């Protein structure tokens, strides 16, 4: 097992290096530059050259890449010009906020998705199955940003149960209850689609397992149905559910961008969108490398978890 993990970690290094090259090249190739973004209509060649010199963008491309990589290996991600703060500070702070949002949604979609899927499968073609399938299809079909806006209109503007946006109350907030209060709507809106997907796949995974011999054997032995479903069947079905959860984690993380914009959640997705529009090169690069590395590591964790559940996978 240790060897497997080490191998996967070593394989991750070229992947992350590849990411640095790609994100660097993309930022270098997209039209428009930081100087134009700063100066707007005032971007004369003279002014642009002056700003580029101040930002160190007048060096050759290859040199810039290696300076950036070298600094990053020393823990220096550079300074964001649009926010005037060190990139790593901004990225960590924002990523933390995104984790609160995406993490909550991930837990919600895992719990409710598996729950719905198992109930559906256990009562195939029953009323509960039909109701859940209908709800799931509806959930999958509604774009999360639209759902978010509708929730704002109904629960925040009309009923005033929840705040419209932000992560803490603007006046005298900041404790846990306040954050949960602000988190509820965006986390639900973000979880809906993923819950649907997890439910659909849990249902089919469970149905497949429930038809197998060992389930019949268990029932024949007189094991209680609840134990058959949650103990025997779900455990076996988890092997195919876990990779789906891995993919959904990525989905929730990327879906957070829309939700963060709609609900003004101060997360990394919104930060990256703003940074790209302002051509804040170092911030985009640092943010993307950081998120991508987390994603790579998360995938390793999922693979390891899966190989623990199903030893056949390990190679």
């Amino acid at each position, binding site marked *: 097992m240790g060897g497997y993990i080490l191998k996967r970690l070593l394989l991750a290094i070229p992947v992350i290096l590849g990411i640095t090259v790609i994100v660097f090249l993309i930022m270098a190739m997209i039209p428009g530059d930081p100087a134009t973004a700063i100066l707007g209509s005032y971007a004369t060649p003279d002014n642009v050259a002056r700003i580029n010199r101040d930002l160190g963008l007048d060096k050759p491309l290859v040199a810039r890449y290696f300076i950036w990589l070298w600094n990053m290996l020393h823990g220096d991600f550079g300074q964001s010009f649009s926010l005037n703060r060190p990139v790593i500070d901004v990225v960590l702070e924002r990523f933390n906020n995104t984790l609160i949002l995406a993490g909550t949604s991930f837990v919600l979609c895992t719990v409710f998705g598996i729950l719905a899927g198992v109930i559906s499968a256990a009562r195939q073609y029953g009323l509960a199955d039909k109701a859940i399938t209908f709800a799931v299809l509806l959930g999958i079909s509604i774009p999360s940003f639209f759902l978010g806006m509708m929730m704002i209109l109904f629960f925040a503007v009309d009923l005033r149960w929840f705040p419209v946006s932000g992560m803490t109350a603007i006046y005298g907030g900041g404790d846990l209850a306040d954050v949960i209060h602000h988190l509820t709507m965006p986390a639900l809106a973000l979880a809906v689609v993923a819950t649907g997907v997890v439910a659909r796949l849990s249902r089919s995974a469970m149905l497949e397992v429930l038809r197998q011999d060992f389930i019949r054997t268990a029932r024949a032995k007189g094991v209680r*149905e609840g134990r058959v479903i949650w103990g025997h069947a779900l455990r076996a079905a988890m092997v195919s559910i876990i990779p789906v959860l891995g993919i959904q984690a990525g989905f929730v993380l990327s879906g957070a961008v829309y939700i963060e914009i709609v609900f003004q959640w101060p997360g990394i997705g919104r930060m990256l969108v703003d940074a790209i529009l302002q051509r804040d090169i170092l911030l985009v690069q640092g943010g993307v490398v950081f998120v991508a590395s987390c994603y790579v590591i998360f995938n390793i964790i999922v693979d390891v978890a899966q190989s623990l559940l199903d030893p056949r996978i390990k190679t």
Partner: protein
Amino acid sequence: MTKFTLTRRGLLISGVATGVLMGTGLPSMAETPPGVLVVGQIAEPKALDPAAVTAVNDFRILMNLYDGLVRYKSGTLEVEPALAKSWDISEDGKTYTFHLREGVKFHDGSDFDAEAVKFNFERMLDDKHPFHDTGPFPLAFFFSSVDTIDVKDPQTVVFTLKEPYAPFLSNLAYPTGLIISPTAVKKFDKDFGRNPVGTGPFTFKEWRPNEAVVVEGNPDYWDTPTTLKAVIFRPITDANTRVAEMLAGGIDLMVEVPPVALKEFENNTYHLVEQAGPHLWFLILDCAKGPFKDKRARQAANYAINKEAIVNNVLEGTATVAAGPTPAAFAWAHDDSLKPYPYDPEKAKALLKEAGVAEGTQVTFYVTDGGSGMLDPVAMGTAIQADLKAVGLDAKIETFEWNTFLGKVNPGLDSKGQHVDMAEMAWMTNDPDTLPYLALRTDAWPDKGGFNSGYYSNPEVDKLLEEARTATDQSKRAELYKKMQQIVHDDAPWVFVANWKQNAVTNDKVSDFTLQPSFFLLLKDVKKT
């Protein structure tokens, strides 16, 4: 039986979850106390160092923290004394002597004096200044005409210009000219932008990234102090969310209300404020190549486009029809006798025929998808395309993201192997000199470092603009600008489309709020219960 267990467990879990969620939902939202004003901003500020920023969004905060030597008289674009009590301009228009207000202190307790003024401008303009590295200062060229700054005595500072430059005073009234505390710059160095210290009606309290910038009323302000205890600026980038926050009571004042949301606020609970500003939305026409080389074809484009419809239907009345190159907000320099080109497709067709432009001629039309002051560029571009089609011009739209768009348009419509017949553009300026000087002169063609991307050239206009820039007498300048407007109106190097009216909404707890033609957000005299 067993199936019942399942459902019960499921019910229990979802019941608890719902309870938790509802429980946190029940307490009513904290209302902001009287005297605290919450303002919905359109983005997170970049920095609060007036010399280092360029965005109107940042200016909205800065104008409340700092003062300049001069400021715009409320409701106009004419300068009046602020930190300078008075000033003298030499005969040749090159020496400006400012007499400073006495007893003014920065928020950190240090004195505002002539040395502080000198420090401010040298930090921006002098590469060798010890604090020049607290930049970059992208708009420093507003003051590039300054040659030397001399301290005569603590209350007198003398600016000597390289050549006469009439817009100097209005540039001083612009946020780039706001005065910061040298002591604070020395203390915070590169972090000054996050620890701003000025002399203004509000003092800086805290900046919580992506959440709020909080400023507090300054009781020792040299002018009448504000009655507000504090102002909280909240960045809310999404316009729909901003509207929802306004409706839910999360903010007291919002700027840049999207046209489609205006109806939400047309009732007694809200107060809608509008103010036309020094903004112009226009189409640059390629005067060097293609059909618009002919003046008659350019006039035809002006006749063909239904500006009333764009302003009223696309922009829902958030703009007025533009008559010429100078926005009416520059009341003293604007030629009121100038009327917008009327919508007259028949006349447009006739003019095109005269100019020898065949029916169905293709023109390339660059459109952007957003950008500072661009209003609703895609919808406006589409409306323009339809109007041109009706008179026989087949406009082919190419849409670009704002920064990419600028990268294609600013170097010139016929640069880098491209040929573009027309492109959208918008400018917000602070002096009637700026836009025409940078974008209509022959010496402002892109290859000479200007913004005349359509290669318009008229020696008469060049002469008028140079003269107006060196004349220090305002009425003389006004006369020259009016002449320039008439010529440019007739030459039609641009299609003059719209002047944006900035809008803002306040709720019924806010009173005495007005918008300024400068588009600055001044909150000193606002009251909030």
